């Protein structure tokens, strides 16, 4: 084996971009291992565990460690690396006269913006978000691991400035037709959404879209917004903003289980626009029920939610239920409905440290699926901008293998016909591979429960 280790000072790329580079190098013939990552303590330790001889480096350096079976293959992998790094040269890099701005503050100076999307590592997100607020811009903080004191400070400053802080840990938003973060392609319409749960909001809005009802805006507020500490600071602002928005006729409020006193306070707001609440928890409506309630409030019919039966003959039954999720709220909802089984949220911080979110990189979940030897596996697949461009490509073969082992597979497919991946095409391929596919997560969970209890 031939090893190459290189530490490049002052070269920065974000972790998702580098993971894509690492993956494509590792997929080359003859390449055994490829680590292309910022030289954080974690990544340097990882490379050393793999047997690479890594010199001293700082988190601001780029670490390259590649192992290939021959010199020639190593050289080819490196050439490919250079090509990919060059292709990822940040816009306005060397050679152009107008250098790219280095901070949000600088970007906002001299460019007329409406909103800022922050997805830097959590410990650095506050500076960029504060720049946005101070520049009088609303900001979506996709980053997680932002301390709650910083969240409160940002939201208080935002209130003074008359702008909205969406997040931290805000996975999705749709503003004026533009999808930020993980976002489904939704038709324009009368429903405004305030969401303290990204995938929860994606489920509700995708179902509405399937029923022919569109969305005016989807304003994420971050998973902690309705906690006692944050007190619904952004939810209140978002509700008032949608109340004032002439395109919004009805508001849906989606949240992970909120602090009761905050839920009460938020619902007690004096708004001119009717509000449908989907506040998850035992005894509360599930997301699908909330979508149906919304349709009824608008005087629309509730359709039968699309589903596709499992191909490959009669579904096996009986045995334990295993939930393998990428969306936290979807996971919670499914576990509540199923009332049995073991559920894991692979989108949780615990699983995303040092790797991409499972909506982008399915490797960890596919591995877990391969480990299910009996019973029923229940998964969510979330479509939309930012997500895996073709989840069926890797999931369908894994479903076939599971079925071959006698494991039943149930998929909650969250998406719309307008999504870049295409809802129907994905559903049909997963169905043909042997999965029962549901557009309602609640329906998927009920089906999985019925299979498990046999």
């Amino acid at each position: 084996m031939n090893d190459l280790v290189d530490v490049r000072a002052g070269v920065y790329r974000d972790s998702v971009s580098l993971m894509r580079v690492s993956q494509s190098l590792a997929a080359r013939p003859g390449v055994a291992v490829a680590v292309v990552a910022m030289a954080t303590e974690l990544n340097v330790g990882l490379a050393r565990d793999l047997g690479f001889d890594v010199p001293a480096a700082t988190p601001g350096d780029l670490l390259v460690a590649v192992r290939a079976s021959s010199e020639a293959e190593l050289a080819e992998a490196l050439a490919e690396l250079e090509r990919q790094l060059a292709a990822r040269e940040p816009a306005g890099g060397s050679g152009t006269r107008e250098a790219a701005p280095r901070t949000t503050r600088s970007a906002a100076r001299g460019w007329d913006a409406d909103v800022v999307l922050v997805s830097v590592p959590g410990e650095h997100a506050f500076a960029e978000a504060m720049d946005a607020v101070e520049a009088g811009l609303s900001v979506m903080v996709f980053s997680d691991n932002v301390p709650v004191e910083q969240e409160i400070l940002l939201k208080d400053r935002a209130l003074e400035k008359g702008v909205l802080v969406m997040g931290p840990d805000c996975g999705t938003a749709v503003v004026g037709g533009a999808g930020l973060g993980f976002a489904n392609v939704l038709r324009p319409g009368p429903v405004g959404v305030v969401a303290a749960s990204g995938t929860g909001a994606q489920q509700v809005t995708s179902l509405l879209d399937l029923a022919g009802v569109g969305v005016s805006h989807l304003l994420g507020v971050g998973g902690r917004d309705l906690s006692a500490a944050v007190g619904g600071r952004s939810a209140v602002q978002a509700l008032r903003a949608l109340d004032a928005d002439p395109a919004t006729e009805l508001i849906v409020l989606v949240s992970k289980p909120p602090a009761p006193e905050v839920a009460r306070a938020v619902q007690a707001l004096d708004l001119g626009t009717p509000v449908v609440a989907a506040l998850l928890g035992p005894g509360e409506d599930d997301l699908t029920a909330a979508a149906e309630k919304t349709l009824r409030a608008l005087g629309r019919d509730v359709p039968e939610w699309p589903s596709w039966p499992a191909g490959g003959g009669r579904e096996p039954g009986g045995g334990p239920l295993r939930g393998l999720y990428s969306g936290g709220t979807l996971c919670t909802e499914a576990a509540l409905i199923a009332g049995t089984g073991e559920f894991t949220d692979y989108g949780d911080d615990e699983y995303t440290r040092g790797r991409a979110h499972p909506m982008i990189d399915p490797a960890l979940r596919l591995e877990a699926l391969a480990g299910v030897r009996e019973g029923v596996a229940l998964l969510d697949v979330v479509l939309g901008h930012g997500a895996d461009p073709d989840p069926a490509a890797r999931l369908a073969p894994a479903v076939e293998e599971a079925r071959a082992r006698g494991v039943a597979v149930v998929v909650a497919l969250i998406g719309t016909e307008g999504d870049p991946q295409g809802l129907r095409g994905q559903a049909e391929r997963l169905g043909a591979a042997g999965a029962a596919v549901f557009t309602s997560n609640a329906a998927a969970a009920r089906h999985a429960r019925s299979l498990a209890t046999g």
Partner: protein
Amino acid sequence: MTLSMLNGEPRVITVGAELLGEALDHQAVPRRAVDWRPPLPGASTALAAVLADPRRARANEVAVGRLTSARPRLVGVRPASEALGLEKGTFFHAGPPIDWERASGPMRGALIGAMLFEGLATTPEEAEARLASGDGITLDPCHHHRTVGPMAGVVSPSMWMLEVADAEHGGTAYCSLNEGLGKVLRYGAYGPEVVDRLRWMGEVLGPVLAAALERTGPVDLRNLIAQALQMGDELHNRNRAATSLLLREIAPAVVEAAPDRAAEVLRFVNGNDHFFLNAGMAAAKVSADAARNVPGSSLVVAMARNGTEFGIQVSGLGDRWFTGPAGVPDGLYLGGYGPDDANPDIGDSTITETTGLGGFAMAASPAIVRFVGGDVSDAVAATTSMYEITLAEHPAYQIPGLGFRGTPVGIDVTLVARTGLLPVVNTGIAGRVAGTGQVGAGLVSPPAEAFTAALEALAAG
């Protein structure tokens, strides 16, 4: 409330994962990407604390507003003993505090020269011995006395000082008279020609300029600097236009005030393209001082080097210095000199960069690149990058080549820590051996640790 982003298709700034930016590109949403990189090592915690300080935004606005609204005017020329109460045996020097022990070659050379000039020693050896013993000698930074000095920046009581007053905020600042290039005191030379020139400056140049200024009244330096920038000066390493403008301003009065001496005075000023530097430095000093002591402000109000250390002072942190080792400039060398002959960075002239001139205004001065190396695009890139670490664009100091954009002014410690971009400094290079003089000119970067140390002090509140 209403949110402006809800009106129509939004324009988005993205910072972080490129994947999420690409998702917007696929939707054809107009966006501007930030070329984000992690902050200076170890700065994260302090940054979060400083950025959370509710006073910061307003404090910086106030501080940089004072800096850019200052109206420096040259009002007089006076001996240091009279203007600053400086007594024999006390010497001001450039940069943060230093003692003889740690002083570099050019600093020692300049102190020796000043001892000889003041008659405190008759030979260089005697001067050196007395300075080393410290007997009756006090060393004190110029910056502690409303004063700045180029290179070694040594000021002694008999030297004549330019007096600059701020017509907006009422401050006053001082800088010595520029001696010219080559073997001069500020570069650490102390031979007889150096001391003789200082004598002539004290006996002729100073008094004649003082008399001339009494006739002209105050000279508006803000206006003069603004004009010089549009004539190709950056006001640190190129002062040719500013010197010419000043000469034009005072020449008739010099002739009237001292007809017998006018020719030699005007010839001396005309023979030194850097004559204006010291007036510009005093103007910068009085402007930066106006921005001092705003609680909560992270604005840099002084950058200065003593030949050993590079130090900065910050508006919200009083008179404390935050230092790191002075770097050796990277540049072009005179004659047979090379990098081995260079002393680490020295001088208070970085007060020009502190106020948005010098390296920050390089794009205004295409001619400078031939002096400090590089090409014109480097000069533009240097200025452009400095907008990333500054709080404002100067309302009066503009750069024609950038569409009359104001120079980047008001260095913010938090922005330096966030971007890792260090102030660009144009500088002369002194010989490291005492007595050598100037050996070159070039560019130098301040030590990053001075900025992280200041950031931590701000965080400690």
